[in-house]
């Protein structure tokens, strides 16, 4: 009896000791130190990549490429931007970047007066170099150091050639452009026109619309009403492709139409996989990011001065729905 009691008491004591010490260990273990201030000196250059469309697959890849390259060359870079092409926000970010006196700004070109004002006047005033990426703004307007991205004119030509090979040299083609007439889109359209003008039997109809879904839908409706026998669509602004295809789908089957677009929209690839888009121009966003950072650091360190003002073009290729399947 007495032994049992002593054994029980001993066990209780051991258990209490164990739990108390475990608990004390948890309380007093200080593995949650405050983050220390970095001992090493700051990175060589502080760069900012600013886009209008954060978190789209395309710009995500640009950002990833830029970050990777920055890590390699020892620069620090942050990706800023607005969501869903919010221009006001986007411009504000550029201004903040300039006021923050970053060493270089890599920016998605925006063909507007405010943008040009900022880059041409303010950035120049602070002596901050600007590199446009993916979407260009002419150097004369923006005083950009260079452009890194696809040759949009060539991309337009590529689309036109694909269109011809798919459709044949006769037919009606609708080009759906952006009413803001950004420089890079104009380049694409120019490329398309330059190819198609060789084929008089190919009739092109150019229409403009904004990004707004309703606008796209009504523009598509209008076009299909006017041209019931249209055979092909080219969404010059990739963001309009989804709404356009949806509207076409409401009228008839999508498959007979030849529809083309670019990959700088978040739904381009899924539409291609579904077979709704017949072809997409695939650009090389990661390369863009990488090269832009590389060129910027080279310019800052004075290795390559001046940069090629015509721009550094990255690879483009045609992705066809038939290949994807």
């Amino acid at each position, binding site marked *: 009896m007495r032994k049992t009691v002593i054994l029980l*008491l001993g066990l*209780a*004591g051991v258990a*209490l*000791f164990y*739990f*108390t010490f475990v*608990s*004390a260990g*948890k*309380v*007093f273990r*200080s*593995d*949650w130190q*405050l*983050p*220390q*201030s*970095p001992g090493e000196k*700051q990175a060589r250059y*502080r760069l900012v990549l600013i886009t209008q469309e954060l978190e789209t697959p395309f710009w995500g890849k640009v950002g990833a490429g830029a970050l990777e390259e920055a890590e390699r060359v020892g620069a*620090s870079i*942050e990706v800023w931007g607005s969501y869903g092409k919010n221009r006001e926000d986007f411009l*504000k970010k550029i*201004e*903040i*970047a300039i*006021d*923050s*006196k*970053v060493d270089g700004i890599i920016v998605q070109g925006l063909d507007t007066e405010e943008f040009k004002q900022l880059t041409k006047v303010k950035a120049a005033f602070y002596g901050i170099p600007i590199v446009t990426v993916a979407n260009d703004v002419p150097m004369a307007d923006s005083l950009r150091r260079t452009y890194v991205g696809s040759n949009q004119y060539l991309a337009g030509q590529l689309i036109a050639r694909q269109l011809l090979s798919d459709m044949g040299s006769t037919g009606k083609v609708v080009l759906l452009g952006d009413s803001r007439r950004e420089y890079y889109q104009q380049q694409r359209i120019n490329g398309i026109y330059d190819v198609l003008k060789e084929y008089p039997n190919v009739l092109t109809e150019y229409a403009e619309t904004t990004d707004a879904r309703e606008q796209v839908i009504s523009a598509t409706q209008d076009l299909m009403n006017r041209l019931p026998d249209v055979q092909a669509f080219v969404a010059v602004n990739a963001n309009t492709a989804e709404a356009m295809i949806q509207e076409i789908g409401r009228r008839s089957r999508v498959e007979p139409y030849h529809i083309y677009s670019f990959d700088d929209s978040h739904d381009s690839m899924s539409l291609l996989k579904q077979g709704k888009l017949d072809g997409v121009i695939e650009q090389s966003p990661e390369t863009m990011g990488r090269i832009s950072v590389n060129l910027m650091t080279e310019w800052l360190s004075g290795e390559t001065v001046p940069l090629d003002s015509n721009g550094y073009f990255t690879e483009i290729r045609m992705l066809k729905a038939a290949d994807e399947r």
Partner: protein
Amino acid sequence: MNGIQKKIWTLAAVVLFIMAAIWIALTYYNQKTQDQYNDILQRYLRMNEVTTASQQTVTSLNNYLLSPSRDNLSQLEQSKEKLRKARIDVIELRNPGNEFALTNYMNLIDSLVETTERSLTFQSEKETEASGNAFSEADRISKYISEMSLTLLDAELKTYDRFYRGIIEQSAELKKLGIWLLLLITFLLLLFTYAFSLSITRPVLKLTQAAKELSRGRFDLRIEVESNDEISFLAKMFDRMRININNLISEIQQKAQLENELQQSKLLLQESQLRSLQSQINPHFLFNTLNTLSKKAYLEGSEETSDLLASVAALLRYNLKRLDRSVTLYDEVRVLRQYVEIQKARFTERLRFHTDIDESCLYVQLPGLTLQPIVENAVIYAIEPEEDGGEIWFRIVDGADRVTVEIEDDGPGMAEERIRQILEERPVESEGGHTTGIGLGNVVRRLRLFYGCDDVIAIESGRERGTKVRLSIPKARESGKHDQASDRG
């Protein structure tokens, strides 16, 4: 220090130690947490300070632009100074998570200061429009700073997210620890207190039981208390007291027994004194009567009877006087002759008594009534049973240092066994009732005691050869032994 006091102090010290340890640990922990909280708050406050300072700068600038007074200018300078100070403070907030943003932040502050100055310069050059533009830019930058502050705070929250969660978890864990600690301490204290109280009360209990036993009169139970304090000392003393009492009691018992015996022997002594006095009176009366009878017999012409009675009276007197005193051989011989006279009166011709006495050695000392019993023995065993009677020879022969006294008869002799019994002073059952009460054994004993040696008496006997008792009496006897012997009785 004393045992019980020490124990109490030990318990108190243990409790105090535990309390102090907990207090120190908790204070340390509290201090640490407090410091961390302070750090965090400091960071937020600094960022907020920047925002406030930048807004103040813009407001001051605006005031100055509207009314360029000295007052407003100094206020502007003050707020700019504040801004610069805030900028320096902000540097310390750098960590890997916010490095980029923080640099931007500081540059924004610089830009604000620069723009403010530009605005002032334009103002002084009366270029109102440019100044206004610069002001609106400063205003924008100030807004950016506010936004950046928020961004930084956001980043801060993200960076420290794990940290904050850790704090919350730890405070929850602290509660648990409190409960465990409480349980543990309660458990330990209960255990300690139990052991402690037991260590005091158990000995006391034992002592109480021992006292109870003692009070019931059981002094033979050992008092054992295993403890190392005063109780054990008390128990030891108690035990010693018990032993002492025990000893005293047994001593008293012994004394009582002794006293009892003494009392009894006293009573016996008194009785024997009384008897001895009584017995002295009877013989005197007898002695006087015998003398009277002797005179009477003489007057009546019976001279022989008269002589006999006179001999008996003399013998009786000798008996009464000399029993406890040493006498000379001469006296002994005289008494022996009287005894033989008396016996002759009885046995007439049957008793033939021959003496051969060396008169020169009758001076030696010997205990009274030594010879008479031996002769009486010879008469009883050698003369009385024989019809023709017998002969008894009595010789005293001088030796070198001893006088030899021989009593010989021609009776039937004694058995070996009986001789041995007599010489070894064993009690002998008497045969026949003719002894005077002082048997041969008594004589042997008295002689040995008197001379302090064993070979003082020898007996030679055989079947039909008679018996010969030889006494070898030393001429010179140590006086000490004599005195001792004479003092007896």
